């Protein structure tokens, strides 16, 4: 009767309300999607303009006029790959790579000596308010603060280049000293005196002459912190040594100045240094 009728009406009202809500939701969604499409279209136009500008810039330099139609996606990709390869090539050749960080840049300096990769050192730089070193893993005996004071603010490329020179030279000197101790310990008398920077080496080694062995004392001073060869070589022998030994000392002294330390010793072994 009446109640059944009321129930029916209630049901219908309820269904109508649900439908209404659904429609409203649909409209909202549509509006949202429409705005999104607008945003994306805007972005696309901006990017297109950028690519156009770049192309025009390049063409402007060449002085040729090519079709200003938008570059294909493939061309863009190829350009990206090319510039990435160039970047990696720079990293590989210089050993210096960088990555933008939250507050600045993080550089990594990789060192090598004659084809052998050695240590890597890191520098975390802040760029605001001015360029400064936030933290680093450079050894304490490398004059980082001095180099930074000279170049960091004014010429960051030079700063990295000079620092890289210092680090490469240091690991190069250290490598030579390590190689000497590892492979030629038989010829060295006593201990090899060195220091943290490996810029002063003092040791004694044996040379043979007339089937007798004589000790040479050598003092290698590496005056240039960016160089892995000594600037000063002093070889001395005992007073009772025969005269030809002085010639040998001079020859060795010259050799140490030109050739890596372990390679010089290798040449002693193979040449069978003998003075008769």
């Amino acid at each position, binding site marked *: 009767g009446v109640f059944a009728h009321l129930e029916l009406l209630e049901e219908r009202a309820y269904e109508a309300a649900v439908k209404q809500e659904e429609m409203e939701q649909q409209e909202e969604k549509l509006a949202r999607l429409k705005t999104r499409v607008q945003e994306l279209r805007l972005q696309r136009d901006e990017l297109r303009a950028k690519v156009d500008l770049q192309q025009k810039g390049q063409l402007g330099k060449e002085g040729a006029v090519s079709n200003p139609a938008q570059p294909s996606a493939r061309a863009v990709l190829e350009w990206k790959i090319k510039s990435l390869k160039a970047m990696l090539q720079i990293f590989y050749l210089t050993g210096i790579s960088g990555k933008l960080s939250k507050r600045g840049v993080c550089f990594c300096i990789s060192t090598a000596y004659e084809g052998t990769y050695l240590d890597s050192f890191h520098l975390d730089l802040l760029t605001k308010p001015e360029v400064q070193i936030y933290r680093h893993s450079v050894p304490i*005996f490398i004059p980082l603060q001095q180099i930074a004071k000279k170049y960091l603010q004014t010429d960051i490329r030079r700063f990295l280049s000079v620092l890289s020179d210092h680090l490469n030279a240091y690991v190069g000197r250290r490598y030579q000293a390590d190689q000497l101790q590892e492979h030629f310990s038989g010829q060295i008398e006593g201990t090899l005196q060195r220091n943290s920077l490996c810029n002063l080496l*003092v040791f004694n080694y044996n040379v043979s002459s007339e089937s007798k062995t004589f000790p040479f004392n050598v003092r290698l001073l590496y005056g240039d912190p960016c160089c892995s060869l000594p600037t000063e070589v002093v070889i001395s022998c005992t007073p009772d040594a025969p005269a030809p030994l002085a010639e040998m000392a001079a020859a060795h002294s010259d050799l140490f100045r030109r050739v890596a330390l372990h390679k010089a010793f290798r040449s002693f072994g193979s040449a069978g240094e003998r003075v008769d």
Partner: protein
Amino acid sequence: MDETVAEYIRRTVLKIPRDEIKMMLQKWGFLSEAQLETVNFRQMKDNVSQDVVQLCEENSADIKQAAVLDIIYNNIYPNKRIWSVYQMNKTGEETEFFDLTDFKKKFKRRLRSALKNVTINFREYEDNAIWIRIAWGTPYTKPNQYKTSYVVYHSQTPYVFISASVLRSNLPLLCQALVIASNYHDIREMELRSHSLNSLKDIVFKRYSQNFQTYYPRPLPERNVAPETDLRIIQENRNEKERIQRLNREVFGDGPQPKIEFAQYKLETMFKSDPKMDVLDKKEPFRCLVKFSSPHLLESLKSLAPAGMADAPLSQLLTCIPQKARNYFKIREKKGLLPGSFVSP
């Protein structure tokens, strides 16, 4: 052989754990292999040391040689002493050519000119570390071999690690000798102390792992790895846990932390309270000392947030320890030097 030398050797050998005695004596090199073979190292330490003293008697050991054994012991067990870090300064910019012979000569000369009764020993190690052992005497007494200072110095660095003895009065002389010998101008004590010498070196030489962002590949997390945990266990706060892990990693890095045993904060800040309470009549700084102790303080700080005991990120006052190379702090009001942080009641 002098009785005091014999006694000193005997006591030094007694300090060494029994299994290590033979190895250390070999490192010492004062007794020949043949002599060492005659000692039974499995008997009681008392007897071992007596035998060793007997052999040293045969070789007529003097105090300088006995001192070398002491250096070897302290080099292998440096954590039995507390080490302080000192920093030297110089104004010149020329490259340093550190000459070891020159350094030793200057150091000895400076010390001996001020104090005749000292025993000085040097020993160099592979990592360019120079160990110096000094036994102090007075103008009237012979050096006391049981009250020694140790200095560890890496050439061409501005840092010196000193484990002073009880006789702190000799510290200024020691510092002066170091400055002169290493061609620096002055020296000051840093606020950095620990039992772990290697950790102190890690901190000042920046050898601990800092998380540098580089392009060097890190192993990517596997995407389709089957989850190891039981699927019935649901991780409620996964996002929060991951956030904490990420922050922790940024601050502490991936590797092991340098080992320090305490951090001390001396507070000289004003007591902040409800104005109505008016606890203190005079407006004076409320002096307070907060000390954190742990067998391994930095590791425990690192595990605080993941264990849910503290909020991440941790206070900078705690996390700046390796970077600032200090574990003794003075906290003043915000206008002061340090990233001010108040301690509210």
